[in-house]
């Protein structure tokens, strides 16, 4: 690095201790620079720049904000230019760059699922009760809204759901998050991915093993990497993050990069509005993810795995940290995984409030200590991923599918679901259904079947509208209730399963407000790097606000179409490319007509 100029603000003792702890705990992980791509004005990464995000968390927790002294101290320890570190800190919702008004910040989800259940009123009530309450995008607790995240100074964060003034007070005084809710299908013999959720003790490796845990790793190590990848390929497993890329092909591509350091990354930055399935898996069965990552890592030849959990999931992060530690002590992670002579370990990284970091290349930048700005593709992660090195990146749901594949074989897995969409899928039911929650169904179930399994629509035979796949997905109406939910059928229908969101709206819900909130979400979450998305999302939001305020669609339709065209065609990443899909589907279905 060149000589850097630092500021002269002094850190507090708490900030210094907190940053030193990060460096001491994680500093052994020295990342030697690979073939790093330089883009977007970023400097080359220093060996320990990847500690910047953990160091910023440490400063935020110590002081309740990223103070000049704390930032400067972190920069000195990690040899990061202060201007760049400030750019990183200001990228994330959960880092404050002004001195806090209060030690606890109460983030209240006012996103599409929580609005109809009183989120806006809750914000007012919390403020009236003296809390520093802020509106937040989706917190991933949609089955039990309105959701609250209490961000604490000097202590761990708390999830409160459903939130109320009383519950927030109880949580703060007891330093305890709301307990996980029971799975609607708990204990059902049909469950494959969720079988242990609500059954196993998530804090106990022994209990995990007593429920069949680590038999899949045993089988995988006996098979060897090539067979493992073959079985995954035979199974026809495809990515559950939205793009549905064949997992076996991805893994083969990384495994073939012999002679280069390789990485396995688990994308647990589940931030798509309406999505909470990965949280349910992580909170209820954390060892399954550790085991699945170990299988994936050893299969692709990665010695290091990175688990990136969104900052809004303190309970999941706590359980995974504990699970990783226990697995390491038991010899299931480390230099000699389960006595196989293979090396694999997992670093846990916590996001800080940025939907865009769920985009795979943005996630790499976030881990590396840069702003979570997506990279242009190609090159793809299989050859140029984390630190510019070959990387297999999969989300939580995709990875835990590997366990039944290892245990039963690819052929047996393939027998479930449909020919072109094998396996089961997790669905996140929220909104006007009788029993919201995470459900596991075979691919091929119809939307009607999914709704019936969740006890049907509240107060009506059929939904007014369903948001399928999340904000990056599409609205559908009752004509599509018999659509089989498979990759091929949804694609043919011009919609997408996305992250498995099934958010149900009734006649009583304000769809104009809902659709405008979707537009607000994309404006809020755009990284700001490329023009089509940075300006396009705010112009789109402005159009939706004008429609709410009485403008006619005819006057705005051309502009909306052109915005959709430029965002869809010329944005760098999937955020901009999908930022108009749900909105246009709402227009096409007439959801905004005749509304208030």
């Amino acid at each position: 690095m060149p000589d850097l100029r630092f500021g002269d603000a002094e850190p507090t003792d708490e900030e210094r201790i907190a940053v030193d702890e990060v460096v001491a705990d994680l500093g052994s992980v020295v990342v030697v620079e690979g073939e790093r791509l330089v883009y977007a004005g970023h400097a080359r990464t220093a060996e320990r720049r990847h500690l910047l995000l953990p160091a910023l968390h440490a400063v935020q927790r110590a002081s309740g904000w990223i103070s000049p002294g704390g930032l400067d101290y972190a920069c000195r320890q990690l040899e990061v230019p202060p201007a760049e570190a400030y750019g990183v800190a200001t990228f994330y919702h959960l880092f404050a760059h002004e001195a806090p008004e209060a030690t606890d910040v109460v983030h209240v989800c006012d996103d599409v699922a929580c609005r109809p259940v009183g989120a806006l009123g809750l914000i007012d009530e919390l403020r009236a009760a003296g809390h520093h309450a802020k509106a937040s995008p989706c917190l991933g607790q949609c089955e039990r809204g309105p959701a609250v995240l209490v961000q604490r100074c000097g202590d761990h964060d708390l999830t409160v759901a459903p939130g109320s003034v009383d519950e927030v007070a109880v949580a703060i005084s007891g330093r305890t998050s709301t307990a996980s809710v029971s799975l609607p299908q708990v204990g059902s013999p049909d469950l494959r991915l969720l079988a242990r959720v609500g059954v196993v003790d998530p804090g106990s490796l022994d209990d995990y093993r007593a429920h069949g845990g680590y038999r899949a790793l045993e089988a995988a190590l006996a098979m060897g990497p090539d067979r493992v990848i073959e079985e995954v390929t035979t199974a026809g497993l495809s990515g559950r993050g939205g793009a549905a890329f064949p997992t076996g092909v991805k893994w083969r591509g990384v495994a073939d990069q012999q002679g280069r350091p390789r990485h396995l990354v688990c994308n647990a930055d589940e931030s798509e509005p309406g999505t909470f399935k990965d949280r349910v898996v992580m909170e209820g069965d954390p060892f399954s993810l550790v085991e699945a990552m170990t299988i994936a890592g050893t299969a692709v030849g990665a010695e290091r795995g990175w688990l990136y959990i969104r900052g809004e999931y303190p309970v999941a992060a706590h359980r995974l940290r504990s699970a990783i530690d226990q697995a390491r002590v038991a010899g299931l992670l480390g230099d000699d995984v389960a006595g196989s002579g293979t090396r694999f370990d997992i670093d846990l990284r916590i996001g800080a409030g940025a939907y865009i970091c769920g985009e795979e290349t943005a996630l790499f930048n976030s881990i590396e200590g840069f702003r979570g700005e997506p990279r242009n593709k190609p090159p793809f992660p299989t050859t140029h991923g984390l630190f510019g090195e070959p990387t297999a990146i999969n989300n939580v749901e995709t990875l835990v599918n590997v366990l039944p594949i290892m245990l039963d074989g690819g052929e047996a897995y393939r027998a479930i679901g449909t020919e072109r969409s094998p396996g089961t899928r997790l669905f996140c039911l929220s909104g006007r259904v009788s029993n919201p929650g995470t459900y596991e169904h075979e691919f091929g179930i119809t939307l009607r079947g999914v709704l019936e399994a969740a006890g049907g629509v509240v107060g009506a035979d059929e939904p007014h509208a369903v948001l399928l796949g999340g904000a990056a997905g599409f609205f559908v109406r009752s004509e599509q209730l018999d659509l089989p939910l498979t990759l091929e059928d949804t694609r043919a229908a011009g919609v997408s399963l996305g992250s498995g969101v099934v958010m149900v709206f009734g006649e009583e819900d304000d769809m104009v407000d809902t659709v405008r909130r979707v537009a607000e979400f994309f404006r809020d979450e755009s990284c700001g790097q490329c023009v089509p998305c940075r300006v396009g999302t705010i112009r789109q939001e402005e159009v939706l606000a004008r429609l709410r305020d009485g403008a006619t669609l005819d006057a705005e339709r051309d502009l909306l179409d052109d915005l959709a065209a430029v965002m869809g065609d010329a944005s760098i990443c999937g955020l901009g490319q999908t930022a108009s899909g749900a909105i246009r589907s709402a227009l096409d279905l007439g959801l905004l007509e005749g509304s208030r």
Partner: protein
Amino acid sequence: MNDVPVPTPRRLVELTIDDRTVRVPEGSTILDACHQEGIDTPTLCWAENLTPVNVCRVCVVEVENSRVLVPSCSRAAEDGMVVATDSERVRTSRKMVYELLASSVDLDRADDEVHAWMDHYGCDPGRMGDKADIATVAQPPKVQDDLYVRDYERCILCYKCVEACGDDAQFTFAIATAGRGFDAHISTEFDVTLPDSACVYCGNCIGVCPTGALVFKTEHDMREEGTWDEDAQAVTTTVCSFCGVGCNLELHVQDEQIVKVTSPADHSITNGHLCIKGRFGWQHAQS
């Protein structure tokens, strides 16, 4: 006898651009190929002396079998690629990029080619709404010293200044992108003033700014007074006299006063970049 460096021969790749067969050395970008063929392509964030960041998206082209448009500035040309630079999709996106920028940023002092392209694509930024009613980056200029001014309501966030300040030229890292989304902006840490930042006043950020957001204080003041007149300026090329490196300077002179100093981007020594002495140390020539 001196060794004459012979570049390693590069394989040619053959692609089709606008129905023309084009051959370029392997590793060339689509934009390189367009330049070679004389196909005019608009750019904002691209510059020959900087690493492509492909953020403005105005150079996008359509590539057969690609789901979305691709940035020609950074996408490598490949054998068999079929590229269209003037399709309906390309025209729509380029036009929209200019309209989106012009609706949010003051482009009055942007390079002439920006306005020429906007005319070419028939841009009408006004259809986004009245600037008083829609979000813009309007703000007062930052005047913090006697050397240069940062007028960020003209900033299109092309990242060129960040690159020039960082590892494309100066390795000072005084500025970076801060904030997110439409609030993203170029900033020092905690927005401290430039004299309190790592800035070394090389002025290389000014040299690469395409929209007049970063300007010499002289230019800013003269524009404010209404005396700035590029037609009345002569540009004299000379060699900087401060040290033995041999940087070419272009002195922009109006009314027998130096009003700004640049260096040609294709100059073998400077690549367009200077230091504080070459960029700002010319007062003695006028005393």
